[in-house]
């Protein structure tokens, strides 16, 4: 079992203004699974992803990653878990504009304490996995949206994480680039990567092996295809 969520609840705000966002979320994910989470905006899917990605803490419940519960472990510990175990892909890429492609990929390696010389080598490997080894020294503004997202994916996998979290990875792309990105996710899945993808596009979600639906903070589905 890679991750396990038990009775996860999340409220925002305090006292009178308290707004419950997630209700009693339970689900498990095996190593190597490819899961899509679908839901309309405001359904709580981003909150769920933040909790899975250690960017946010659940109000109640247990979240086990490799059997450990670090979900309320504090800034330093959670930063370490994010760095070592999770790779993030965002809708808007979030590349640093003053950095070359390989430097963007090497960023999490720096935070992970990888020696400088090795960082470049590993960034190059990660970029070649998405077919951008010839664009290593390009700046983000010299790359197309699809290429930027591929750089972002290689940044996410450069640390060899246990879990890849993608939040609307095709949301900002044209359909052709989106296709390419989805193909890369397929490849990564075939090579054994565990992936959770959040999307509201059915066509994208259907590439996953399992789709979860979230409405008003409640998780349903979980049927395997």
């Amino acid at each position, binding site marked *: 079992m890679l991750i396990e969520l038990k009775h996860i609840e999340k409220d925002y705000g305090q006292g009178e203004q308290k707004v419950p966002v997630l209700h009693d979320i339970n689900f498990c994910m095996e190593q190597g699974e490819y899961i899509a989470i679908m839901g309309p905006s405001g359904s709580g899917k981003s909150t769920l992803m933040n909790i899975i990605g250690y960017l946010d803490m659940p109000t109640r419940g247990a979240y086990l990653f490799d059997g450990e519960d670090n979900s309320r472990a504090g*800034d330093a510990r959670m930063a370490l878990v*994010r760095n070592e175990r999770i790779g993030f892909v965002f809708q*808007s890429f979030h590349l640093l504009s*003053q950095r070359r492609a390989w430097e963007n990929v090497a960023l*999490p390696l720096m935070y992970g304490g990888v020696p400088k010389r090795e960082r470049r080598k590993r960034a190059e490997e990660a970029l070649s996995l998405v077919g951008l080894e010839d664009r290593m020294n390009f700046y983000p503004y010299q790359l197309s949206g699809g290429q930027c997202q591929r750089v972002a994916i290689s*940044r996410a996998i450069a640390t060899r994480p246990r879990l890849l979290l993608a939040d609307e990875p095709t949301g900002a792309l044209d359909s052709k680039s989106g296709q390419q990105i989805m193909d890369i996710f397929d490849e990564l899945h075939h090579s054994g990567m565990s992936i959770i993808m959040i999307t509201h596009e059915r066509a994208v979600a259907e590439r996953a092996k399992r789709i979860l639906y979230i409405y008003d903070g409640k998780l349903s589905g979980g049927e395997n295809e």
Partner: protein
Amino acid sequence: MIENIREAFDGIRSHKLRSCLTMLGIIIGIASLIAISSTIMGTNEQIKENLIGSGNNTVTIQLYQGDYPFESEYSTLPEYVPILGTEILDQISKVPQIAKASAYYSRNAYGIIWDGSNGLSQGTIYGVDNNYLSVYGYVIRAGRNFVDTDFSQYRKVILIDKQVSESLFLGEDPIGKTVEISGEPYEVIGEFTQSTEFSPVISSIEDYYTYHTTTGGKVLIPYTTWPVLFKYDDVFSFVIQATGTDDMTTAGKRAEDILNATITNESTTVKYKSKNLLEQAKELQELSGATNRQLILVACISLLVGGIGVMNIMLVSVTERTPEIGLKKALGARKRKISAQFLIEAGVLTCIGGILGVVVGVGLAYVISKVSSVPIFISGYIVTATVIFSFIIGMFFGAVPAVQASRLNPIDALRRE
């Protein structure tokens, strides 16, 4: 660390105009600090140079009545002040801080020295012993020095300096010429000069008062001839040479005490007082220091304002770079890493500002020295200190924005696009 500094430069480079404006406050503050301190130090260096050059570590001790030198031309010496002989010099020379001592009489030379119809309109006439020349570091340039028989036989011989020679003899060789002093003929036997040529740099009225005595014309006669010339016994003044510049004040005080011990009335205002260039120079330094301290205060305030400017810009920068901070946090950057990044950016920014400020300040100091002919002295120590100081300002005022950045919640930070 190197990564952080690189990041800081990236941040500065990507907002060139804003960074320049931020640095402006620091640049102005540091530049004015450097300009002011180099003029202060220049003035002090100048004073020191003038002292070493023109003072020869000499201290003169004269009889004073209250705050003014006792004038035996116009007042009668009180009976409790004895006329001292040169024997007192043996006692004075025993003081460890005193290398040499000499006794002399002096009067205004105005209107009493004539070469035919050509009279001396300024300068001083001295009745000196045979130590006088060596205490002041004078050497005979032409002719001969006084010899023992000049003193024992009350000879009417004089030594003159170049200034007197030029005004009396208009460039002719003075040796062997006869001049008239109070109607008596005196033979010029030699011309003396400073062993090392030195003219103090005079850049203010205070400087002039301090140094001008050494640049007046001098006429020397044997002290034994003095009573013959002026018809009665004058009171000696003394000049001593201290063993070092730092000993000047002590040496003067010790000699003062020895001389005042001869005065039998303790409550009188007639007393020997020492006067040395070092003390006067200190007064000069304090005078310039007091006004400049206020200028330094103003410069420090402008640095403070510059620092607040840095804080302001860094706060804007944190807000602007929220997504970047969020991303870095998501990728595993810890709080400490984020705050270090902003601290170092502020530090680098003010450090560059400091270096530019030094450059501008040095330029400004040169302009000041050209325009107002004030000497400047640029100290490496001050330059390093101000750059470090500006770095500290950056760290100090960067602290608030840095902490704010590190506390950002990564989700909020990422959501803001």
